[in-house]
Every structure is written in structure tokens, then in C-alpha cells.
């Protein structure tokens, strides 16, 4: 029984990271109708920036906040420079754009910081949380920080003018434009926020997976699985999906023999394909009606 609760708690901790990634993916998907395949690489780049600042002697939380701000600006710049001109282009062109961004970001990170694996500090430490053996302080801190981020986002979208405008621009761009919302800037804002949310995920997972240019590959796939499970059109679904996928991953790794680390990514692939085939709209999404 202790093993089970232990694994579920650990699953919630990594699930929080997947929830963050999935939320970042869904934010951009909502805004422009495309999946950002470079989301993981962007988060990895942000994490490297935070690492660099900490190396320069900046306190952890100062580096954390500054990285969030820089990522936010970076996301907006990427949208304005690269993806706004592609807004009307076919899916294929957009896909190529995301893959090009993927290649550029991972290559530039390797150029600046090389490909050796670096440890990343945890602000919480790795000791057991409150003397309990179930969960470490870092895992507890991860859950805490991400719940805080989610709460802030919830209040932002629910109770602020600009949050409402962003939702309107995502759901009904034409009508939003007619009531005077600058939908184009709302999309850029969505990119900025997605980049910042992804950066939170990157900085919190880095102490666990270690810092290197390919560190987000697996996390991104699990983020996709979470987003698909929850439904690509539902931010709430993305968060729930993230936690479910985290728990699923840990339970399968523990209770199905031979499925440990080796089958991690294939399992995520299977999950994505099964959800897409059985219920493409996910748990919380709504079905898209296609017109001829």
C-alpha cells in the first residue's frame, strides 16, 4: 500500500510538469490552431538561461523570475517575427516552421552551452518532505509552484479584462475583432505566456532529468499525451490530463514488469494513438465539426 501511495504521489509531482507543458501547448493551439513542436526546446533554452544566471551568482528565485520575463518576451518575439507571417499559410508550412524552430533552438543551445550534462540546483533540496518518506521536498515544491502558477493563470483568464479578451480572441476571433479586441496581439500574448509556462516546467524538471539540450524530448511527448488526453481545446483538460499521465506513467513503470525506463516513450506513443483513435476530442475537449 505504501508503494502505491508513494508512486501516486511521485506521479502527481511529474504530472505537474506534464500539466505545465500541456497547458503551454494548448495555449498556443487555442490561439493559432497548430501544435508547437518546439515547445520543449523553448523550455530547455529558458532553463539554460536560468542556469547561466545562477552560474553568474544570481540567487535562485531572482533567476527564476527573470527567466520567466525573458521567456515571455522571447515567445512574443518568436510569434511576431516568425509565425505571424505564416498565419494564413497551409498546415504543412506551419509544421515546417515549428520544426525549423526546433532545430534552431536545440542547435543554438548546444553551441552556447555544449552538450555535456549539467546538474541544475533545486531551491527546495532533496530531503524527505516533512519527515515523510513518501515524497521529497523538491517534488513537493514542484507541485506547490505549479499549483500556484495554475491558480494565477486561472484568475488571470477568469477575472481580468485582458484574460477575457484573450479567451474571446481564441474562441471567436471574428467577433472579438468586431468588439475592438486586437486579436493579433492576443495571439502574441498567448505565445509569451506559453513560453513562460513552459519555462516553469523546464526549470522544475531540470534537477530531476539534468540539464542538456535534449532534456525535454521525453517531457514534450508526455506533455503532448497529456494535452491530447485532456482535449486540445481545453486548458482545464490539459492540466487534468497532465496529472493523469504522470500517475499512469509511474504506475505502469512500477507494476508492469519490464516496462520501466525502456518503454517510457513507447508507452506515451501508445497513449497518444489510443486516445486519438478512441476519443480524438479528449476527456474535456469538444468535437470539431467539419464543413465541406
Amino acid at each position, binding site marked *: 500500500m505504501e508503494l502505491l501511495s508513494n508512486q501516486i504521489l511521485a506521479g502527481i509531482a511529474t504530472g505537474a510538469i506534464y500539466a505545465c507543458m500541456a497547458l503551454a501547448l494548448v495555449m498556443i493551439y487555442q490561439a493559432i490552431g497548430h501544435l508547437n513542436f518546439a515547445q520543449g526546446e523553448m523550455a530547455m533554452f529558458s532553463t539554460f538561461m536560468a542556469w547561466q544566471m545562477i552560474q553568474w551568482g544570481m540567487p535562485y528565485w531572482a533567476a527564476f523570475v527573470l527567466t520567466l520575463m525573458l521567456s515571455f518576451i522571447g515567445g512574443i518575439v518568436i510569434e511576431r517575427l516568425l509565425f505571424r507571417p505564416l498565419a494564413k499559410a497551409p498546415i*504543412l508550412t506551419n509544421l515546417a516552421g515549428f520544426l*525549423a524552430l526546433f532545430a534552431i533552438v536545440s542547435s543554438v543551445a548546444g553551441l552556447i552551452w555544449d552538450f555535456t550534462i549539467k546538474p541544475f540546483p533545486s531551491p527546495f533540496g532533496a530531503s524527505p518532505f516533512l519527515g515523510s518518506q513518501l515524497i521529497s521536498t523538491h517534488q513537493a515544491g514542484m507541485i506547490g509552484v505549479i499549483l500556484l502558477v495554475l491558480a494565477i493563470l486561472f484568475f488571470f483568464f477568469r477575472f481580468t479584462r485582458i484574460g477575457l479578451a484573450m479567451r474571446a480572441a481564441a474562441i471567436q476571433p471574428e467577433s472579438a475583432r468586431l468588439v475592438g479586441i486586437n486579436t493579433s496581439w492576443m495571439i502574441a500574448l498567448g505565445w509569451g505566456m506559453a513560453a513562460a509556462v513552459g519555462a516553469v516546467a523546464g526549470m522544475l524538471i531540470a534537477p530531476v532529468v539534468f540539464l542538456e539540450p535534449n532534456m525535454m524530448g521525453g517531457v514534450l511527448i508526455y506533455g503532448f499525451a497529456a494535452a491530447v488526453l485532456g482535449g486540445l481545446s481545453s486548458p482545464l483538460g490539459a492540466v487534468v490530463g497532465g496529472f493523469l499521465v504522470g500517475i499512469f506513467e509511474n504506475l505502469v513503470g512500477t507494476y508492469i514488469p519490464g516496462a520501466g525506463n525502456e518503454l517510457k516513450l513507447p508507452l506515451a506513443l501508445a497513449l497518444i494513438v489510443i486516445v486519438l483513435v478512441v476519443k480524438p476530442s479528449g476527456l474535456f475537449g469538444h468535437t470539431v465539426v467539419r464543413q465541406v
Partner: protein
Amino acid sequence: MSANRESAAGAPAVDTGSGQAVTLGTATSIVILLLLLAVPLFFKNFIIFQLTTVLIYGIAVLALNILTGGSGQFSLGHSAFYALGAYTSAILIEHAGMNYALTLPISGVVCFAMGFLFGLPALRLSGVYLALATFALAVATPQLLKLGVLEPWTGGVQGLTVDKPDAPFGLPVSQDAWLYYFTLVVAIAIYIASVNLLSSRSGRAMMAIRDNEIAASAMGINVALYKTLAFGISAGITGIAGGLGAIAVQYVAPDSFTIQLAIALFLGMVVGGVGWLPGSIVGAAFIVFIPNVAESVSKGLSGAVSGILLFVVIFLAPNGARQVALAFQAMIGGFKKNHGGSNVC
């Protein structure tokens, strides 16, 4: 759902250049063929090896082109089929002692079957969802190849070494030159078969699905059959390319078939021009030579350079090399507008 999202979903997923077709005329084809045949006479073995690589990637890009340009489905996971083909050939050569040339059709058939099977669930996915599922497939491939259960055959992380074939019948050509000619023959055969496939009844059925799936099914086209068939054929051809790749590189290992390879193939297709088969070789040259040049300037630069060039292509010539070819054709057409039909159409 917004009004403009709906119209975006209803529009064809691939813009194939508003029906303008550029095909290579007979004269152009013969000149290109002669140049390709003469290559080993003028270059050193290393360059011949690189040109062989271009041909091999050209086949893989062509396969992707049949899938995307032909039936309008996306795949970011063709590295998986390339890997499957490479491993099938390598295992047959090393463990079963089979002749390298005979392993290629087997690789093709194995990959066709796998592609067809993957295409079955993928049937229900379109556009970005299919891209997502295949992306996950590409990321998972190296891990699948490392599986402990398969290690006796695949060699696990270490991979497998493959012997390089000698020229048969005591022909006086080097191993590299022989492999080049062998690859060239395979490439030409596949190219001709693909051109015929796309202009056949099945090819036109696929294109109808690409342009409007619902209208195609209303016309009585078996959408499910043709979509999975396109996926299977594309995977099969990629598998043959993978088998050739294993023979040329003389080595297969899980980390040669990462998402980077899948991205490279996709980039090759975009650079060459989606739906334009001759563009495949241009795209393949792009993905082979650009990283080499960039890598010689600074280690690790290749991703950045190909990414930036890709953005340049997307912004300046969204239809890739085909657009450039069209421009050339228009220019030539301008020169000889008084001579009636030109031979490049």
C-alpha cells in the same frame, strides 16, 4: 469553433501550387541521367559516398512526397520506417548471411506492412493530429530499438556492423562506385514506379482525397483504403531507402534514427517542393550537404543553419525548389516563345 478555424479545416491541408505542374522533359532527364552516370569518373571515393547518401535520402524524401504530396497526410515519423528497413537489411545480411540486394525487397515489404498497420489507426487522424502521432513515433523509435528483448538481433545500444559489398563479376570499379551505381539503379526504378503510381487511377484517387476528402468519398473513392495504401507504400519505399542506408554506412545503431532524421526528411520534402517528385533529390542534397558545410564551420551549427535556411525557403519560396523550377521554366519560355511548345512541360 471560430468561423475562420472551420474554413481552415475545410481547406486542403497542402497547398500544391494551384495545379501548375513541372515535369522534366525527355532531354533534361537524359542530360541529368548522363551526369549522374558519369559522376564516379570524376570524383574521389568520399564524394561518391556522399552522392550515394544523397540518392538514398532522395528515395526517402520521395516516399514522404508520395504520402504528403499524393494523399495529403503528414508524417514526422518516417525515421521509424527508415530505421526498420535499415535494421531488417542489416539483420538479414549479418545473421542470415543473405545477399544485400535481396534484403531490399524484404525490407520494403516489412515496412509496407508496418506502414499499413500504423496507417489503420492513423486513418482517423488528420492534419496536426497525424503529425503529432507520427512525431511521437519518431521520438520513441530509438528506445524501441534499444529494447532488451530484441538485443540478440539488434545488438542493443551497440548496433550492428554491415559488410560493404564488392562489385560483382570482377567489375573494375571501387566499392563506393559500385554502391553508387547500385543505388542509382534502385533510385531510378523507384522514381519511375512512383511517377506511374501518381498518374495512375490510384494516384488520382489519392490526390482527390488530398484535395477534399469528403468530396472524394462522395465520388465513391474508398478513402480508408487509399489513405492506408499511401501510408504503406510510402513506408515501404522508405524502408528500401533505409536498407540501402544500412549497406552504405555499414552500420546501424538506435541513435542514428532519432527525431533529427525524421525532421531532416520532412525538411527535404519542403525544400524540394511538396508534390513535385524531382524536387526530392534537391531536398536530399540540401539535407546532406548543408549540415556538412555548417558542421565544418562550427560543430553543432548544422541545426541552426538548416533551420534558418528553412525559414528562408518558407518565406521566399513556400513551394520550394518547384517554385524555382517554375520561375526558370517561365524564363526559358520567355526566350523561346516563338518556337512553339518547349520541351520542359
